[in-house]
C-alpha cells in the first residue's frame, strides 16, 4: 500500500512564480546596481591559432572605455573546467575555437564596449585546424591540447559479444549520427556584481551550480573562500549549459581590479557562440537477438565530439557507454566510447549527457530486430526490459524501483488503440501516418563518482524554520520540492519554511543542478538535516509529553502523541515551546544534512561497477503524420510514461515531462547547430507551441527505497525517449529509417523518395 503523506504528492504553487509573473527584476540582467560598468568579451577570429600579440591601445583611447583585460591580468589560475581543467578564461598562448575569449572590455556604456571590441587588434598565427573527431584521432592531426586530441575513453566488457553474435538469429549493425545542439534557454547568460563593504566580491549569476562557480572564481583570482560570494540570480533555464562558468569569471576579474559594480549580459548571438553545446555523437552499434527476440549481445563504438574543451565531455562519454544497452538485459557487452577534441565550440552538459543520443541508437536497433524477427515492437521491449534482479551491462544487479515494464504497460492501451485504428493504413494520397515507441533508462546522479549534497535546517527559539540549500532552482521547481520534503519530515506546511537558496555565503554545496539528481540527492540531504532537527525536537518532547518517542509524530508544527482517541491539549506541544527549551539547554537547533548515493566506480578495463544508486525509466509513444511530398512531419500525439519513484510535486513532474518532450521534438525534427552558420535565433529553430502536439503524461511510481519518500528524478528522462519514438514512427510510416538526427525536411523527404512514397503512383492509388 502507498504511504499517506501530508504534503508529498501535492502540487503547490511554485516558489518564485509570483515575482516572475509580475515582471519583478529578479534576473541578473535586471538587478538594480549603482552605475554598473558593462563588460563584453572579444572572441577568437580563428578556429585554431597562436595568439602572437594583443594591442589594446586604440580601444583604450575610446571615450568610456575603462579597462581591457587579457590573460596577463588574471591573478590566480587561468584554467577552468568541472571535470578536467583545460579551458582558460582568457586565451593565453593560443585559441582553440571561435568561442574562446581573448580579451575583456569594461566600459561605461554598451556602445563604448562594442566600439572597443572592434578596436582591439589581435595578431594571430593561424594553425591547421581539425573539426572532424575521426580526423582528430589520426596521428598526424593538429594537436589541440598538449596531451593530444583523445581526452578520454571508457570501456565496458562483459561476456563474449563476438561469440554470442554467432548464435543469434538476428544481428543488426548500424551507424547513427546526431548533431550539435544548442540549449536555447530563453534567458541569455547573464551576471552582475559589486564589491561589498567588507571587500567581498559579490557575484549574481544565472547558474546551475553556484558552489562550483565559487570554487572556480576563487581559484581564478587567487582569493580566499570568504572573499567571493556567488548568489544565484533567477535563472531563465539552463538545461546543462549554465553548469560551466559563463560570465562569472569575467565579472570576478573586473570586480577584482576595478572595485566597481559591473554587469555582463550575453546577447543571444554570444550565448550561441560562447557557451556549451550538446555533443554530436557518431556511434556504430551491433546487437544480436535470438529467435525469440531476446537480446544477447551488443558491441558499440561511440565517438563524442567535445569541441575545443572538455567541460562535461568525460561524463558524456562515460554515461553514453553505460546507457547504450538501453533499458534491456544484455548478457554480452563490448562497448567503447571516446571523447575527442576538435576545433569547434566546446560541448558540455545538455539534458541527458549522451543518453538521448544513444537512445536514438538502441531504440532504432530494437525496432530493427522486431522487424527482422516479425515481432511487435512493444512485445520485444517487454521481453527484454530490465526487472528487479536484472544485471546491467556494468554488472550491477538492480534491487528495486525498476519501472520500465510498468511504463511499457502504461503506454500499451494507447499503442493498441492506435494499431487497431489502422494507423499505418494508406488513407491519404500523400500523407502517411506512423506510430513509434521509445524507451529509456537513466542513472540518477553522476556516473560512478561521488556527488554528494548537503543542506542545513535551522529552527530559531521562536520555532521558525529556515532551510538552507545550495541547490539552484533553474525553473524546474527544486526549491518547492525541497520545501515539501522538509515540511513532510517536520510536519509543517511548506509555506512556513523560509528558504535560503543558492547563496554561497549562507548555503553549503548541494552540487550541480544536473543529472536529474537534485530531488533524489539534495532531497535526501534535506531529509537528513530535518530528521536530525526532528530528533532533537522529539527528544525534548518526550520529557514534556511523558510518552515514548515511537508514540510521537509531527503534526501542524507540534509534536503530538499519535493515535490518541481524544484530541487533548496535554497530548501536544508546539515547536516554539520546544525550541525555547532546547535553545536554553544549549543544544543546537541548526543541523546539516548530507547524502551521497552509493555507487561503485567503473573499472577502467572492464567497466564493471555500480555507477548509479538508482535509475529512472520511461517510455514514449509518438503518433504522427508524414507529408510524403515535402518531408514535413506533423505530430498528432505523444504519450509519455515515466517512472519517477514518487512524484513529490506531480505538476512539476508533468512540467518536466512536457518540457522534455518538446525539447525531444526539436532534437528529433529540427534542431542542428552549425558552427559559424548558426548565428542568431533566426538560424536555430526550437519548437513553438504549434509544433508540440497533445502530450499525455503518465506518472508511474515504482518507489525507490533510498529516495526521499521514494522519489528519483525526471528532468533528463523527460527528453530521452521522445526522439527515438518519433524516428520509429517515421520509419513505420515510410518503411524507411533515418539514421542521422535531426530528421529534418531534407532527410524525411529523401526517405520518402527512397521508400517509393513520393510521386503520382501513390496519388493514383490514394
Amino acid at each position, binding site marked *: 500500500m502507498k504511504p499517506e503523506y501530508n504534503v508529498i504528492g501535492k502540487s503547490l504553487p511554485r516558489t518564485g512564480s509570483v515575482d516572475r*509573473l509580475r515582471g519583478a527584476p529578479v534576473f541578473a540582467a535586471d538587478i538594480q546596481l549603482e552605475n554598473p560598468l558593462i563588460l563584453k568579451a572579444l572572441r577568437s577570429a580563428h578556429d585554431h591559432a597562436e595568439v602572437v600579440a594583443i594591442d589594446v591601445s586604440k580601444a583604450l583611447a575610446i571615450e568610456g572605455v575603462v579597462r581591457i583585460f587579457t590573460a596577463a591580468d588574471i591573478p590566480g589560475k587561468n584554467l577552468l573546467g568541472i571535470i578536467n581543467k583545460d579551458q582558460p578564461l582568457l586565451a593565453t598562448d593560443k585559441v582553440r575555437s571561435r568561442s574562446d575569449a581573448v580579451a575583456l572590455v569594461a566600459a561605461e556604456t554598451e556602445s563604448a564596449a562594442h566600439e572597443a571590441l572592434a578596436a582591439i587588434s589581435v595578431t594571430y598565427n593561424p594553425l591547421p585546424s581539425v573539426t572532424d573527431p575521426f580526423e582528430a584521432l589520426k596521428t598526424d592531426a593538429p594537436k589541440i591540447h598538449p596531451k593530444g586530441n583523445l581526452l578520454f575513453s571508457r570501456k565496458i566488457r562483459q561476456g563474449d559479444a563476438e561469440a554470442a553474435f554467432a548464435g543469434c538469429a538476428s544481428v543488426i549493425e548500424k551507424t547513427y549520427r546526431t548533431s550539435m545542439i544548442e540549449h536555447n534557454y530563453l534567458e541569455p547568460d547573464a551576471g552582475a556584481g559589486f564589491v561589498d563593504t567588507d571587500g567581498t566580491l559579490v557575484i549574481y549569476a544565472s547558474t546551475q551550480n553556484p558552489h562550483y562557480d565559487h570554487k572556480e572564481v576563487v581559484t581564478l583570482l587567487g582569493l580566499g573562500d570568504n572573499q567571493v560570494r556567488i548568489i544565484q540570480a533567477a535563472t531563465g533555464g539552463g538545461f546543462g549549459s549554465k553548469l560551466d562558468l559563463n560570465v562569472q569569471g569575467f565579472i570576478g576579474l573586473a570586480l577584482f581590479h576595478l572595485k566597481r559594480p559591473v554587469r555582463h549580459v550575453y546577447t543571444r548571438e554570444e550565448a550561441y557562440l560562447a557557451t556549451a553545446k550538446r555533443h554530436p555523437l557518431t556511434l556504430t552499434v551491433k546487437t544480436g537477438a535470438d529467435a525469440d527476440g531476446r537480446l544477447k549481445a551488443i558491441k558499440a563504438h561511440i565517438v563524442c565530439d567535445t569541441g575545443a574543451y572538455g567541460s562535461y565531455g568525460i561524463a558524456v562519454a562515460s554515461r553514453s557507454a553505460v546507457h547504450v544497452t538501453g533499458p534491456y538485459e544484455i548478457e554480452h557487452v563490448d562497448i567503447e566510447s571516446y571523447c575527442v577534441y576538435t576545433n569547434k565550440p566546446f560541448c558540455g552538459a545538455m539534458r541527458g549527457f549522451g543518453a538521448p543520443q544513444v537512445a536514438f541508437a538502441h531504440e532504432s536497433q530494437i525496432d530493427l530486430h522486431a522487424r527482422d524477427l516479425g515481432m511487435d515492437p512493444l512485445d520485444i521491449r517487454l521481453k527484454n526490459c530490465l526487472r528487479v534482479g536484472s544485471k546491467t551491462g556494468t554488472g550491477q544487479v538492480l534491487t528495486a524501483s525498476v519501472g520500465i515494464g510498468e511504463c511499457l504497460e502504461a503506454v500499451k492501451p494507447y499503442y493498441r488503440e492506435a494499431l487497431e485504428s489502422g494507423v499505418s493504413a494508406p488513407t491519404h494520397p500523400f500523407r502517411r501516418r506512423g506510430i513509434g515507441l521509445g524507451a529509456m533508462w537513466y542513472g540518477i546522479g553522476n556516473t560512478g563518482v561521488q556527488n554528494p549534497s548537503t543542506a542545513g535546517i535551522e529552527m530559531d527559539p521562536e520555532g521558525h524554520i529556515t532551510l538552507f540549500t545550495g541547490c539552484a532552482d533553474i525553473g524546474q521547481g527544486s526549491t518547492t520540492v525541497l520545501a515539501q520534503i522538509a515540511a513532510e519530515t517536520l510536519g509543517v506546511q511548506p509555506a512556513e519554511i523560509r528558504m535560503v537558496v543558492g547563496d554561497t555565503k549562507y548555503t553549503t554545496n548541494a552540487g550541480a543542478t544536473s543529472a536529474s539528481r537534485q530531488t533524489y540527492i539534495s532531497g535526501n540531504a534535506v531529509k537528513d538535516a530535518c530528521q536530525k532537527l526532528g530528533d532533537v525536537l522529539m527528544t525534548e518532547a518526550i520529557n514534556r509529553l511523558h510518552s515514548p518517542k515511537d508514540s510521537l509524530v509531527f503534526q501542524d508544527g507540534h509534536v503530538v502523541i499519535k493515535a490518541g482517541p481524544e484530541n487533548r491539549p496535554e497530548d501536544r506541544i508546539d515547536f516554539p515551546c520546544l525550541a525555547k527549551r532546547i535553545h536554553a539547554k544549549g543544544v543546537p537547533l541548526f543541523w546539516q544534512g548530507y547524502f551521497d548515493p552509493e555507487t561503485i566506480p567503473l573499472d577502467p578495463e572492464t567497466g564493471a561497477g555500480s555507477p548509479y544508486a538508482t535509475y529512472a525509466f520511461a517510455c514514449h509513444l509518438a503518433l504522427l503524420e508524414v507529408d510524403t511530398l515535402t518531408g514535413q512531419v506533423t505530430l498528432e500525439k505523444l504519450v509519455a510514461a515515466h517512472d519517477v519513484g514518487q512524484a513529490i510535486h506531480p505538476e512539476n513532474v508533468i*512540467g518536466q515531462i512536457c518540457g522534455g518532450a518538446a525539447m525531444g521534438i526539436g532534437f528529433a525534427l529540427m534542431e542542428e547547430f552549425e558552427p559559424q552558420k548558426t548565428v542568431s535565433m533566426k538560424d536555430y529553430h526550437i519548437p513553438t507551441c504549434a509544433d508540440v502536439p497533445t502530450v499525455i503524461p503518465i506518472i508511474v511510481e515504482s518507489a525507490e527505497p533510498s529516495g526521499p519518500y521514494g522519489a528519483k528524478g525526471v528532468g533528463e528522462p523527460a527528453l530521452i525517449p521522445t526522439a527515438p519514438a518519433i524516428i520509429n514512427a517515421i520509419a513505420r510510416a515510410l518503411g524507411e529509417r533515418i539514421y542521422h538526427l535531426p530528421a529534418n525536411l531534407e532527410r524525411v523527404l529523401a526517405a520518402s523518395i527512397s521508400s517509393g512514397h513520393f510521386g503520382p503512383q501513390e496519388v493514383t492509388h490514394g
Partner: protein
Amino acid sequence: MDPKTVHIEFTLNGSPRSLEIPGAASALWVIRNLIGLKGAKEGCGIGECGACTIEVDGKAVNSCLMLAAQLDGADVLTVEGLASEDGLHPLQSSFLEHHGVQCGFCTPGLLMSTHALLKENPHPDHAQVSKAIAGNLCRCTGYRQIFASIEDAVKHNSGEAAQ
C-alpha cells in the same frame, strides 16, 4: 530640432510619460533602460522569441523590433501594468495556479500576448490561442501548462481578464 533625439509622449500602464530618447532606440531599450521596467526581456533581440512582448494600443508587439519613437501617442501596457495593488491579474493567477511558469523568462511576454488576445477575443478556442502565442517561445514547459493556464483564464473570463 535635432532629430537624433526625439521627444515622445505616451501612456505607460495608465500613467502619462514624456521622454527624450535616441532616434533609433528600440521600445525595449527605452522601457528597460530609461524607464527601468525590467519585465519585458531581451531573449533574442530580433523578434524570434517574444520575451519582449508588450501591448501597444491593444496589440501585442515585439518591443525589440519597435522603434521607441513609434510609441509616441500610444497606449502602452507592460507586464508591470497587469497586477493591481489588490493582487495579481486573473491571468497571472491562472498561470500561478496551473503551473504555467517554470523559469519565468518567457512569462511576461506570454502574458502580454494572451492579454492582447483576450481583448480582441474574450473566448478564443485552442487554435486561436495557439496562433496568438506561437511567437512566444518557451523552452521549459512544452506549453501544456501554459495552454492550461490560458484556457482556464478564458473559461472564467467574463471580460475582466482583458481589463
